């Protein structure tokens, strides 16, 4: 049997990481211009900051942290929806991980839970089925979040609820899509991004093909990367190689998991139950057309947004004025540029969502980056 340690240690091998760093430094020294890489996905931001990879790179390689953190892009009014639903009589609200901590306009879900609302973070979305079956006299609402990665799990849940006739399981869908977010970033005339590290697990589901239009339209390299430090360093090398040869191509470094077409079975079940929504307001980025999913009309009997329409608040709520999450998500600022970073806004008391999730850029900087800011090592 292969030992787990042997598996992941290969992707964290110090010699490999150093060799990749040397090669990147060598090649990048021939390039005059800055290489501004947006890692779209918060998972990559986390890898870069946690493993200190930015400290191993030359000064003309800069990271611009992208909007790919499902918690970070959730606008306050959607959290308010969750809070409102959770406070309705006989409702159990289910959601994933960090969502519990994201501040809405009247506090986060942890606060409403402490005040008596039945809010449960799930480890496995399929637990929603059991909870709904065990509580037939309650309405169980799954507050579904995430990019293409976690959408199939929601689709399977809907499928199971339909097939098993679990009528008390409803859904509040907040699934968002990566390509429209890339378009929104690039549509900004101030954007400095000239290369992308493409998401890992999103691409496992959707396939690398979803990035082809962006590569052509913006004439920029996109390298789909795994989440381990060696993956990210190799992807950076591949970007630098493309820049060196003046190319702009789609490349898949994470080829052990990502194919051109992706997981067709997952895509099929998503298409069976969900469809693209006209518009979704992203925290920091504003409304982006065709950037999120909703339940198809024939499943509106499971759509909490339809069923509780009259109770749900409709007002759009912006972040605190001092919070620069919007600029950070668009790649126009880095966390330390924000006046409230580490002062008024900390993981204990986040003003903006980028400070909440471990995948958020501000949170990653706050947790890990003090060292590289204080005394950069090269």
């Amino acid at each position: 049997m292969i030992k787990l340690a042997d598996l992941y240690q290969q992707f964290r091998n110090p010699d490999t990481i150093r060799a990749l760093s040397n090669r990147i430094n060598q090649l990048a020294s021939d390039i005059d211009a800055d290489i501004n890489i947006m890692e779209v996905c918060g998972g990559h931001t986390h890898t870069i900051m946690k493993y200190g990879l930015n400290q191993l790179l030359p000064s003309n390689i800069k990271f611009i942290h992208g909007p790919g953190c499902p918690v970070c892009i959730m606008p306050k009014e959607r959290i308010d929806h969750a809070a409102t639903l959770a406070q309705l009589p006989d409702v159990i609200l289910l959601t994933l991980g960090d969502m519990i901590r994201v501040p809405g306009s009247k506090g986060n879900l942890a606060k409403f839970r402490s005040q008596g609302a039945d809010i449960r973070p799930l480890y496995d979305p399929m637990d929603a089925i059991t909870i709904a079956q065990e509580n037939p006299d309650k309405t169980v609402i799954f507050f579904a979040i995430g990019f293409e990665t976690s959408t199939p799990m929601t689709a399977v849940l809907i499928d199971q609820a339909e097939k098993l006739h679990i009528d008390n399981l409803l859904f509040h869908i907040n699934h968002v899509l990566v390509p429209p977010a890339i378009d929104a970033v690039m549509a900004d005339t101030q954007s400095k991004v000239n290369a992308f590290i493409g998401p890992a697990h999103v691409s496992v589901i959707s396939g690398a093909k979803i990035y082809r239009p962006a590569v052509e339209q913006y004439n920029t390299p996109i390298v789909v990367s795994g989440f381990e430090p060696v993956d990210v360093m190799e992807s950076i090398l591949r970007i630098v190689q493309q820049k060196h040869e003046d190319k702009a191509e789609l490349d898949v470094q994470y080829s052990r998991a990502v194919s051109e077409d992706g997981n067709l079975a997952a895509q099929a079940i998503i298409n069976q139950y969900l469809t693209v929504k006209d518009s979704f307001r992203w925290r920091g980025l504003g409304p982006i057309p065709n950037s999120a999913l909703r339940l198809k009309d024939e499943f509106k009997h499971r759509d909490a947004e339809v069923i509780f329409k009259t109770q749900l608040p409709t007002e759009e709520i912006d972040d605190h004025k001092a919070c620069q999450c919007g600029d950070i998500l668009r790649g126009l600022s880095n966390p330390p540029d924000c006046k409230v970073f580490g002062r008024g806004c900390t993981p204990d008391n986040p003003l903006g969502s980028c400070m909440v999730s471990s995948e958020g850029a501000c949170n990653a900087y706050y947790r890990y980056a003090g060292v590289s800011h204080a005394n950069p090592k090269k």
Partner: protein
Amino acid sequence: MPIQKNDQVQLSHGGGGKEMNTLINDLFFKAFSNPILESQEDAAQLQLSGATAFTTDSFTVDPLFFAGGNIGKLAIAGTVNDLAMMGAIPEYLSCSFIIEEGFAIQDLQTIVNSMAEEMQYSGAHIVCGDTKVVPKGCADGIFINTSGVGKIIKQNISVNNLVADDVIIVSRDIGRHGAAILMARDSLSLESELTSDCATLWPIVEQLIAANIDIHAMRDATRGGLSAVLNEWATASNVGIDVDEKNIPVSSEVQGLCELYGFEPFDLANEGTFIIALPRSAADKALEVMTQYCQCDQAAVIGYVTDEHNGKVVLNTPWGSSRYLDLPQGELLPRIC
């Protein structure tokens, strides 16, 4: 009527009458017997002299039974370890149970037996106690509080005592208790041979003291794990601490769980793992003493104290970068994708 194995705890078992006496006599006195407890006075009489350590802790673990221990073992080891970490001999304990109506007597018996067994490792005795039974739904099975007192035989062990050039030693691989508890929760259907590190540390500490090791600071890395201890020390002593990731022992099972759920082994709780800060010159001897004990064969120097970046803990990676090792924050929630 004597207590039956298949009974459940009733509200009357906490009522102060006959049923309560039966529970106390049949279960608690049998397991915990010692002259001070059996004197049944309103308070235990203790003969103390000199500097004495005094500590208390409440235990509310879910699930109550886990691989490598249960709430009873934890309630003894936890309090005894707090005394040991102050260089004190664990001597006298108090023990309060808050039991939910309907709790199985058989489970209570198992818990009480574990407590009695665990006390043998330190020689501590339960000398006073209390039992309350609350209506169903008002507690989660059983809660236990233990307090402990003990004579300090090694002075000046303190969070304030770290100085530059001290080295940091960890007694064994980290994160086992936190990982075992996560693994045992119903919502994670994982299988593994992982067991909690839950253990009484006094026998090892006693040997370190006997060997006259100059211990500056010593703490068991319970909730908050290694990160919490190192950060507390860095703040309290106003020093910096540098640790090398490659030297920190982590088992494959714990690492695997962390990989799956996006946790860090540094943040996971331990219940039988401790950290020592001591002068560099004392490190070899301390390691020699520690590795003689079966649970410490992985003891290792993981870092050192510095007068740079005061108040902060820096983790150095094997490839030459570094980052802050911060205090864990909020609930441990699994990553989303």
